[in-house]
């Protein structure tokens, strides 16, 4: 499993590059080469690294390590067929790391990014709707059981489409340059990552690459089922490109609208799950 982490990081970074390229081409810009994010990460790894005098030490450094650790754990959970509840926990803990990143530097921009990250925890509520819905449909929260269920009953993408939409929105809310990316809005510089440079930024890029890889892999496993590795990568790429299209066409929402929209989506899904539970 550990030997798979490094390829997953590189594929995740490549996905980030493809994401930027697709958005750029839709907006009639040439865009960066697709390996740009890999180069970025390598560049940051060897740049001068510093810690602001105002930073809370060792929290400023620790939070980067936690970020990498939780997504490595999530990778393990997904590919060992572990509990979906544990994956949900990782998604929530990611919010804490985002918050800690912003708070630890002492920068007002970081702090605003941190505040927005907790506000956008509303984006995790559709995930809870996804988990509840999957539990109602399959009777299990173990990813291994869910993939087995799909081998017998067919993909959940068609069998429980609204639940797939909920998960899709969760992934969309975590994508760069998306309508819900309020923590990275340019009016607050780079948001919660403003003061993390050099090797700390490289660490964050690694964590976020793993995050993208895990999110896309989880979506494919939960709603399409277990596939050979090359088909899995193709399916993940298709999901990613569809997300890039949405990111390219939609403006970034205001924090209030982002939270309101995610809450409405969760409300609609809650009604669907209640109906599903009563009828089922």
């Amino acid at each position, binding site marked *: 499993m550990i030997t798979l982490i490094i390829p997953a990081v590189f594929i995740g970074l490549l996905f980030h590059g493809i994401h930027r390229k697709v958005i750029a081409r839709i907006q009639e810009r040439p865009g960066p080469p697709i390996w740009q994010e890999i180069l970025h990460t390598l560049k940051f790894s060897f740049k001068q690294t510093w810690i602001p005098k105002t930073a*809370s030490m060792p*929290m400023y450094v*620790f939070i980067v390590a936690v970020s990498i650790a939780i997504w490595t754990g999530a990778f393990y959970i997904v590919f060992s067929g572990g509990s979906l509840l544990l994956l*949900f926990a990782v998604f*929530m803990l990611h919010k804490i790391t985002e918050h800690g990143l912003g708070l630890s530097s002492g920068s007002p921009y970081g702090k605003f990014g941190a505040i927005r990250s907790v506000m956008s925890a509303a984006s995790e509520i559709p995930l809870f709707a996804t988990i509840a819905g999957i539990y109602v449909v399959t009777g299990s929260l173990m990813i291994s059981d869910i993939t087995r269920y799909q081998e017998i009953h067919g993909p959940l993408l068609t069998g429980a489409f609204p639940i797939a939409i909920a998960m899709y929105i969760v992934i969309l809310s975590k994508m760069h340059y998306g309508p819900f990316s309020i923590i990275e809005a340019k009016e607050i510089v780079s948001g919660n990552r403003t003061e993390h440079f050099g090797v700390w930024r490289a660490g964050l890029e690694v964590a976020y690459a793993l995050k993208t890889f895990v999110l896309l892999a989880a979506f494919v496993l939960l709603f399409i089922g277990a596939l050979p590795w090359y088909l899995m990568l193709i399916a993940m790429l298709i999901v990613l490109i569809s997300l890039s299209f949405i990111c390219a066409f939609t403006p970034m929402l205001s924090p209030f609208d982002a939270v309101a929209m995610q809450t409405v989506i969760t409300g609609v899904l809650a009604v669907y799950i209640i109906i599903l539970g009563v009828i089922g």
Partner: protein
Amino acid sequence: MFNLPIEGEELFALEFGDIVNYFSLYTTTLFLFATAFIIIAIIARPERQTDIVFGTDAVYTKEINQDNLRFQRFMAIACGLATLGAVCSGDLFNFSLFTALIGITNIGIVAGVNNRYVLNAAYNYGIVAMVATTFLFGGASMALGTCGTLSIWELAGKGLVPLAAKMFLVLGVMGEGMAPFYIAKAEITRAPGAPYVLMIHVSSLLIFLRVIEIILTV
């Protein structure tokens, strides 16, 4: 209870009669995460907040009162310990008790800031936490009245706990974990002490994650 396909394998269980405190893969993850942030609250020095001088391009660093920060650190450690209790408790009453303690210590972390706006916010959170306690213990009482036990181990997989009791528990946790309220108010931008403020969010999210596991299990 670990034949339920919810939270992964059992790692350790400690029996006290029908009350069984247990560690599953899920609760152990939460426990370790809380432990890591308690250590951070103990060893980390707080950040020095920078702010922009209104109407200019100048930036200044705020002075922080060390006595207030010591109190915040104490409350953050107490909050972390209460969180540890809440995530590994195998009993609905103990869970409610630890969660109520998290609410109290959260107020303490906020109230440690010597600023009248932040203190006013802490007063408001206190009211929310008190109201939430009613729901929390109400939920546990309803579970006891209906099932005759508060042991999560005994109740697991039986579906005996009424939906209203589960909803009360969730409402109680939402009130005690004050991160969403705190974040929605301007006071957080005035409050220094990143490792301690972060403990509010760690505890709020961890008890929310724990209550989700409880309501799915019982």
